[in-house]
């Protein structure tokens, strides 16, 4: 697939509201993957915070030992996700300009998705083409 060769900024652009049109699906896998990865990263980060907070509240030594090991695993997972996202160009922690540009495009995309009629009653595209029998 070509989408992983392109940088995400080439793929990410304000989307066309006609999502039924195949042409507008170009770059969709890249869009989905980067969004899912970001969600994954945020969940890992929240997990680290939750575990650290729990450690400050728990005294029981067995529980502390287990939570400490979970915390270490979670930190490793977070490192892996952020490294992968940086390598794929989905995340630019050292290039704030690039990151802000990406955020702006993502914000626009989210607003466009919010405005879409995602589950229309009729998804037929008849009428778009010459259909002599109708």
């Amino acid at each position, binding site marked *: 697939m070509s*989408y992983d060769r392109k940088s995400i900024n080439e793929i990410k652009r304000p989307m066309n509201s006609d999502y039924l049109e195949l042409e507008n699906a170009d770059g969709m896998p890249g869009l989905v993957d980067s969004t899912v990865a970001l*969600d*994954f990263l945020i969940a890992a980060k929240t*997990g680290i915070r*939750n575990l650290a907070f729990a450690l400050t*509240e728990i005294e029981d030594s067995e529980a502390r030992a287990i939570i400490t090991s979970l915390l270490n*695993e979670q930190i490793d997972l977070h490192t892996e996700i952020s490294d*992968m996202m940086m390598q794929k160009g989905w995340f630019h922690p050292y290039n704030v300009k690039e990151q802000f540009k990406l955020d702006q495009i993502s914000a626009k995309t989210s607003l466009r998705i919010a405005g879409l009629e995602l589950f229309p009653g009729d998804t037929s595209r008849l009428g778009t083409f010459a259909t002599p029998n109708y």
Partner: protein
Amino acid sequence: MSTKKTLAPHEAFELHELLTFKNVCATKAVTMSKLVKDDELKTLMERDFNSSVEQIKELQSLLQNSDYAVPENTIKKSESEITPIH
């Protein structure tokens, strides 16, 4: 009096919160990994799901030390089984 020290209520609540969070994460990881096309991300998410299963089991066994714990044998087998994905 039992020799095993039970968890204080606030410790049990904390573990309960961690468990609910892990449950959501595991469910999300396995569902979202099906939507992903990128192989690297997919394997990372599947690996996370498998380790989440282990972590959930650890938290479950910890919660057995709490006064609020429901004895394991009262939960139906089919409700407590999680099978890892390969």
